[in-house]
């Protein structure tokens, strides 16, 4: 039982962490929390199942296409729902515009694909009796994806010039613009990267979570919890928070039942935020007057 709690918990936690990173990448570039994070995760699974199961595509090609779709959706999100409202005096319009866009995609998926959970194919042809098959790939794939993403982002941010430009925008977008950084293009790039990460979370997690439109709301919420608790914009917080959330949820699932796990997560989320609105690791906000 302990093994299954840990393996399942870490795997689900890795998916939450990836969705949390998706939120963060978009937030860093635009100070916007986008409801499209969960949608990307949902679509990663649905498109994967559609390409491989329904259309009979090869898994590698399907993977590439899903990532491309994620990037395109990220770009559309930026152009359609974020850029038009960034300049608005109304601070919260992005909440509504991104929610509307995510709902539209979800509805198209429901009507054109399926409203019920669909199976997701086994991606790697691994013999379950070989040493590679000791832990099911549906558990280690999301964890691997999470590790690759973190290492990739870290390399991007620390080692490349464009990565430093991302950091500059995240730190102070006015100053970055004054330095001549192409803020709009960097923001688009960030949204495309976020799209890929979100789709990656869905694609690698779908053997476990299935291809299901209902995942959108679940991932939106459970992906946001680690961001809120770990401090917005902090990928380290998102990963630690995501894994902890996954483990806690699975343990509670086994020990006291799923429904109490949900209630407990929600209660912890609310209480922590009420006590520390900036998150457990975040810093307090600035002046208002």
């Amino acid at each position, binding site marked *: 039982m302990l093994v299954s709690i840990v393996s399942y918990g870490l795997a689900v936690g890795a998916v939450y962490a990836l969705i949390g990173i998706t939120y963060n990448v978009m937030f860093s570039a635009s100070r916007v*929390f986008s409801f499209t994070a969960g949608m990307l995760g949902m679509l990663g699974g649905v498109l994967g199942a559609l390409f491989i199961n329904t259309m009979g595509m090869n898994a590698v090609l399907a993977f590439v296409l899903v990532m491309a779709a994620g990037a395109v959706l990220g770009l559309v999100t930026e152009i*359609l*729902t974020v850029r*038009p*409202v960034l300049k*608005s005096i*109304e*601070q*919260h*319009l992005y*909440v*509504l*515009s991104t*929610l*509307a*866009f995510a*709902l*539209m995609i979800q*509805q*198209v998926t429901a*009507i054109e694909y399926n409203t019920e959970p669909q199976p997701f194919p086994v991606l790697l042809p691994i013999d379950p009796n070989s040493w590679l098959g000791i832990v099911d790939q549906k558990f280690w794939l999301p964890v691997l994806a999470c590790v690759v993403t973190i290492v990739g982002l870290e390399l991007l941010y620390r080692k490349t010039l464009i990565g430093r430009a991302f950091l500059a925008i995240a730190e102070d977008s006015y100053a970055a613009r004054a330095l001549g950084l192409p803020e709009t293009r960097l923001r688009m790039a960030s949204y495309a990267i976020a799209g890929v990460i979100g789709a990656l979370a869905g694609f690698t997690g779908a053997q476990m979570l299935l291809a299901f439109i209902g995942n959108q*709301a*679940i991932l*939106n*919420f459970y992906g*946001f919890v680690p961001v*809120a608790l770990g401090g917005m914009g902090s990928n380290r917080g998102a990963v630690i928070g995501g894994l902890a959330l996954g483990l806690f949820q699975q343990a509670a699932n086994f020990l006291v*039942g*799923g*429904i109490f796990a*949900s*209630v407990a997560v*929600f209660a912890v*989320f*609310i209480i922590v*935020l*009420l006590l520390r*609105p900036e998150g457990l690791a975040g810093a307090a906000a600035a002046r*208002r*007057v």
Partner: protein
Amino acid sequence: MTDTAAPISATKAPTGLLGKLEGKISWIILGLVGLFLPLLDDNYIGVIAQRAYIYWVLSAGLNLVVGYAGQIAIGWVSMLTLGAYTTAALAAGRVGGVEWHPYLALIAGGAMGAVFGVIVGLPALRLRTFYFAMTTLGFATIVTQVALAWKDVTGGGVGTPGPNFPWPFEPGWGFYYFCFILAALATWITANIGASRYGRALVAIRDAEVAAEASGIAKPKLLILIFLLAGAMGGVAGGLFSSLQSYITPDAFTFEMSVLFFIGILIGGRGSILGPALGTIILTALPEFAAPLVQWSTFLYAALLLVIVLVIPGGIADLLDYKNRRPLEQHREIVPRPELLSRILDSKSELSTIALSGIALHFGGVRAIDGLDLEIRSGEVHGLIGPNGSGKTTTLNVISGYYRPNAGQLKLNGADLPFDKPYARAGYRIARTFQTPRLVGAASVLENVMIGGTIDGSGSFAEAMLSLPRHHRDEKRLKESAARALATVGLESLANVRADRLQHSELRFMEIARALMLRPAFLLLDEPAAGLSAEEIRRLGALIKAISREGTGVLLVEHHADLIFDICDRVTVLNLGKMLAAGTPAEIRSHREVVSAYLGA
């Protein structure tokens, strides 16, 4: 300078019986249609109408949360779920084995909604927009999960039957009138609140939170009341819904319903009652009359939401607001009438003093204020000048309670003034204006000024909700004193114009009018002359001087040296958070360091 005596009649509110009817005619038509709809004897239309009424009972309450207070409570469908299951389970005797009378069960549903409305709403007091939206969403998901899992009470996935209400609202047209009456009641209650000082305070919290605080509006208390009411209305709507559906399962309460409520309000327009009511009716009825659209209805709602947000954030109400598209007079002049001040301000016999001693405030390593002593006395204008970043506004923010200094004392007549409580300053009659005018753009100038007098109302929230006499007296008095304050600063001709149509200089005078509504013992002005013409500055100076002569202590943060030296009784010069000099204008003008550091030769 041209003739200044003639008042400019830019816009006038409709007066008389006809004018009153003009505002209400849409409601009368809606009411008559609802009242006589049963004559059609069409059950199908009847059911659609009942659903629209039920949704409106919820949406009317949600409208106060979303449209007025600006809180993005997306998952409000959870209140419908809670109310429906509470009513149905109690009426069916699933709790404790006793079958509750349906009407009692409905009241219990409302109470359940009220309790959870507050619980779900509480995070709004501390959390940012998106966080709050997320918590309401998360709550809605969890309520559905609990409904699925808690089989004893909810019947799980199989569901539970909803109650039939006995006489006089038995199923059929009796129940129709029940829904109709409750929808009308919901409209009346929320319209009363919307038009009261509580409604204006909510909008002020939404659009100008710091100004609301400075006017003494305590956000937590007000929001909790609103969440309580909106939750209760959602719960009652749920109880009615369970009866209309006759059988409820968790599937009946989809997130799409939340979106429908939400979009109905946004289509209608924020801060309006009629608009959201029409929006809700249209959205409820539309899919019924366009059968092929049913499958796509949620998609269309979402698309509509996107279009509204991107194209008409103001909703239908804005589009219909033809009065505010009439052009305003081009060359307007602000002519304050300081002689009217004695009718607004209390005559103050005893003198009072705000004293700062040794105040120090650091932001990280930056010493914004570094040991400042300052005294503001009633009846005097105290100028605070200094280069940018010398701590002038920060000092003002400490006095008005936005910042807690690291050291030092702040006393009013010898007693400590509490820090960290900006909304409590109004009670001490300490008013202020802001460097950037803080206004409710969509409200009229008069309403903006009325916000300043919020704490002087005596009617309770319940009295406002039920439109009782004390509330009417409050409104009358507030309106009169706001009109007087506007006349005093010279803006009475613009009283009924939307505030966001005003010029910058007019907004500065409007802020002063709003501050005067407090009958301030102390008035803190943050660069009131910035952006004003020379003539306007002269008039502003005369007005400020006159205010101080009525016994009000004025602290004037300014860059215009002429204005400072013209009207100030005493001047303090700041540099790098420290006092560089203090004294009469004449002393300051000849102070060598001040001249070299700030004024220039």
